[in-house]
């Protein structure tokens, strides 16, 4: 599955990192970094991460 984060919306709150820690992380500057394409086995985690994003910036394709 493909993941896209709208970085104009993203405020780097980091809530996604709790739900899908192997996909989303905050770097040393506190900015979001993420893996753009992941195995479908992580679908539940990625869905949960998109659900808890306060800015609703995560899109799943």
């Amino acid at each position, binding site marked *: 599955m493909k993941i896209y984060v709208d970085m104009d919306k993203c*405020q*780097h*709150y*980091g*809530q996604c*990192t709790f739900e899908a820690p192997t996909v989303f992380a*905050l770097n*040393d500057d*506190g900015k979001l970094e993420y893996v753009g394409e992941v195995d479908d086995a992580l679908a539940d985690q990625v869905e949960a991460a*998109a*659900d*808890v994003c*306060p*800015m*609703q910036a995560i*899109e799943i394709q």
Partner: protein
Amino acid sequence: MTQVVIVGAGLGGLRAAESLRGQGFDVMVIGDEPHLPYNRPPLSKESLKGGVEVEGLHFRRKHDDIDWRLGAAATGCSLQSRVVYVDDAAYTFDGLVIASGIRPRHLPVPGPQPQVLRTADDALALRSRLAPGVSLLVIGAGFIGCEVAATARQLGCEVTVTAYDAEPMMRPLGAQLGAAMKAHHEAHGVTFHLGQGVQEFHADGVTLADGTRLSADVVIEAVGSVPNVEWLHGNDLDLADGVLTDNLMQVLGTDVPVVAVGDIARFPNPRFDDVPRRIEHWNLPTETGKRAGQTLGALLNAETPTGDFRPMPAFWSDQYDIGLQSYGLPGIGEATLVDGEWSGDCIVEYLRDDEVVGVVGVNRTKDLMDYRKSIGAS
């Protein structure tokens, strides 16, 4: 088929609907606003600053076969007969989700009621009146009041804030951090009149308890909220403050399969203690909505709901270049500065009997993640 009716088309109603539809139940959602579920936090910030219409705030849709009944609020309910009323229409259910949320509170004082900010339509109305040079009076210094004040300053408005509490956001953040946030607002040109109740509303402002008369072009009232429970009257439920549920969101006081979610649900969270609380933090509708979906699904399948539900409350507030972030329940603890200075970027822990019950960071998002782990860990 087994029919679930969900009253309330906000985030909590949506998450419960997704869970229950995903389990194969027929799901109808009744919502008072004409809009599909949308994200409210931007209404006092990005949307007010300019340009974001409600269409841009809608949550993504995972199911095309949820029956949305929008634009009219539920007016009554008989749990015994398993029916919800919307004016003259009656909708029968096997299981019910209470997700009717909250509405803005009004101060019980004489005079014309000011505008409020709760819905996308409220935000559109307020936005149309804010412009450079326009004066704005904000009644209430909670998060919505302070966010509106910050946004209006950034739009070039003259902003005054008045509130009964001695400091802004005092009850959730404590007096020290509240005072620091007040100083930030003052540095951006906001004028405060705190520690005074409102005696009377006028079309162009208020008279405070000490006789001070404040006037402005635009007046907005942001003094908290009240739960939308009236449609549930007559069912012998505990509606003292929202709807009382158990830890798994099952409504107490009825044998009918009913759960409550989001801002209206008063539930105990063993992360902290066994005291049922209503919590208006952004992530709770999602957490409780998903949990309530599991609970109602079990009840409708004649099973006993199981599990341990210990959600971590979380909220955020952006004012100027300040990003506040909170985990846990800071409002039930005593504030202790653990890193930085009160007046700048910092981390504050909230302790109750030596136990960490909450943590708040000012522009410290990443560092806060480690502190989060200590909340309710015992």
